[in-house]
């Protein structure tokens, strides 16, 4: 039995006008602004950042574009609606959420295809270039295991390709790891000679992530087409930076990555040629999404981000390319003007300008990196820098151990400014000079002693 008070309470609660008054603009304005993000770094006090025992006055300037790139604001703008209201699963066939999600995925697919002159039906979305490399190498060879037993690749490939090949070796396949010339390019004569009747795959990456060398894709594609072998290329670092045309380059399989072209991390794509058809065995089994090649819900926001990144890359390739070449020249000339004993690893002519790998003689690499706290660069590649071994890519180039240890990779990108390059030059030159000052080896060199002729005492 409702008392008058209870019925009044009920009326108030159910009356939308009353409820609206509680959320009036005055009330909202009186709320405090959202609190700043919880600090992810160690401590942030008095404008200093302190993490892992390193104190710096601000966030370092970023020159490590080969490890990853910042997400372009235009890409983020394209992605956000799919995290907010358009959150549907693209494989839901029965409602608007699914339809709009699917149409966004197909539009992104067309964007990726346009950037490499392929047909959208030949593009499959994966979780990244590593997955695409795995599918290409293992998927192709396992499909043809009855008649093809041989794979050719190079010694400078990305770890995921080399590891997939090692895995195939355990299954009984034979792998030829081609050496490269000291400038990083693969020898086309050796490649043609290495191809056997039972070769199923040739895998050569387009742009090397450590030294930035661009392989002669058109020539390799021509050789493979003549001999009837599928040509796979890992184009993660090349997409959107050098023009790629799957027809002109005779590419059969290609791995693409989202986070190297100012897109989100966690997405990539695989190009699989349809004419003549390249057959592969899927490595992810499940509901048959992506034409059965790669099962699993396609992550719409990530895929939309990759599509937007490809659109932008297509429009900006020339502008970015010119700018980045000029910045690379500025960096190299700036460093060479003040320092001697600077060696560029890899060919200068066949190079993607945004990747500059330098070795500084008579300086130790780890100490150089530790001194360059305000510049975010890397030595060796991100994948291999946990161990103290010099990078296997530099070893394949024939670089001396001491020079390989002291290599620094500068990665220049769309958002790098001239001021950042100048500051990087200043910091690098300063640090190298400081270390050389302390180095007894350098003193000996200045006195004219040839280091290589020294007999170090045997212990």
């Amino acid at each position, binding site marked *: 039995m409702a008392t008058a008070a209870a019925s009044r309470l009920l009326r108030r609660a159910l009356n939308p006008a009353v409820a609206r008054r509680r959320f009036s603009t005055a009330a909202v304005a009186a709320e405090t602004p*959202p609190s*700043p*993000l919880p*600090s992810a*770094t160690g401590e*942030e006090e008095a*404008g*200093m*950042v302190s993490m892992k025992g390193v104190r*710096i*006055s*601000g*966030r*370092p*300037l*970023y020159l490590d574009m080969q490890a990853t790139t*910042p997400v372009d*604001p*235009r890409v*983020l*703008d394209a992605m*956000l609606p799919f995290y907010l209201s358009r959150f549907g699963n693209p494989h839901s066939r029965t409602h608007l959420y699914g339809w709009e999600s699917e149409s966004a995925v197909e539009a992104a697919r067309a964007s990726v295809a346009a950037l490499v002159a392929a047909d959208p039906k030949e593009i499959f979305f994966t979780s990244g270039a590593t997955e695409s490399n795995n599918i290409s190498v293992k998927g192709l060879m396992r499909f043809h295991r009855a008649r093809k037993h041989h794979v050719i690749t190079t010694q400078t490939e990305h770890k995921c390709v080399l590891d997939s090949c090692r895995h195939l070796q355990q299954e009984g396949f034979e792998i030829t790891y081609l050496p490269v010339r000291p400038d990083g390019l693969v020898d086309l004569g050796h490649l043609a000679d290495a191809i056997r009747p039972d070769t199923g795959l040739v895998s050569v990456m387009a742009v090397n992530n450590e030294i930035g060398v661009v392989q002669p894709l058109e020539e390799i594609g021509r050789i493979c087409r003549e001999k009837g072998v599928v040509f796979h290329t890992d184009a993660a670092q090349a997409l959107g930076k050098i023009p790629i045309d799957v027809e002109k380059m005779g590419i059969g399989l290609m791995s693409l990555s989202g986070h190297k072209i100012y897109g989100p991390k966690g997405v990539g794509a695989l190009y699989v040629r349809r004419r003549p058809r390249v057959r592969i065995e899927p490595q992810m089994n499940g509901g048959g999404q992506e034409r059965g090649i790669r099962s699993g819900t396609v992550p719409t926001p990530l895929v939309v981000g990759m599509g937007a990144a490809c659109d932008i890359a297509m429009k900006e390739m020339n*502008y970015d390319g010119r700018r980045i070449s000029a910045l690379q020249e500025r960096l190299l000339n700036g460093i060479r003007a003040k320092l001697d004993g600077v060696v560029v690893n890899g060919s200068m002519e066949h190079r993607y300008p945004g990747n500059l790998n330098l070795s500084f003689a008579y300086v130790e690499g780890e100490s150089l990196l530790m001194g360059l706290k*305000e510049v975010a660069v890397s030595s060796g590649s991100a994948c291999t820098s946990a161990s103290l071994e010099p990078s296997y890519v530099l070893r394949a180039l024939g670089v001396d151990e001491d020079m390989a240890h002291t290599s620094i990779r500068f990665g220049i990108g*769309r*958002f*790098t*400014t001239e*001021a*950042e390059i100048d*500051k990087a030059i200043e910091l690098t030159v300063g640090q190298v000079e400081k270390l050389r000052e302390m180095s007894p080896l350098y003193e000996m060199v200045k006195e004219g002693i040839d280091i290589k002729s020294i007999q170090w005492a045997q212990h």
Partner: protein
Amino acid sequence: MASSAARAEVLSLLRSLLRTATKFSDYNIREYAKRRAIDGFRDNRGLTDPSSIAAAFADGKSQLEVAKRQAVVYSLYAPRIKSVMEAESP
């Protein structure tokens, strides 16, 4: 040839883009937005065909909308510590 009214519109669009660019809290994005707007308008200065002028103008307007939204998003998540490039400049 662009009429003076169209010219004023184009300049106003460039000014809006530059004003929005300064609102970005991230040093690299801010510099890129300023630079790209100026370079983009400079490269298109010689356009004479009215349909391509209209297309470029429409593209500029849509980029302005994107920039306005993203300037807000970036400021919502701005890190407390700025880039070393900003810490130094006066």
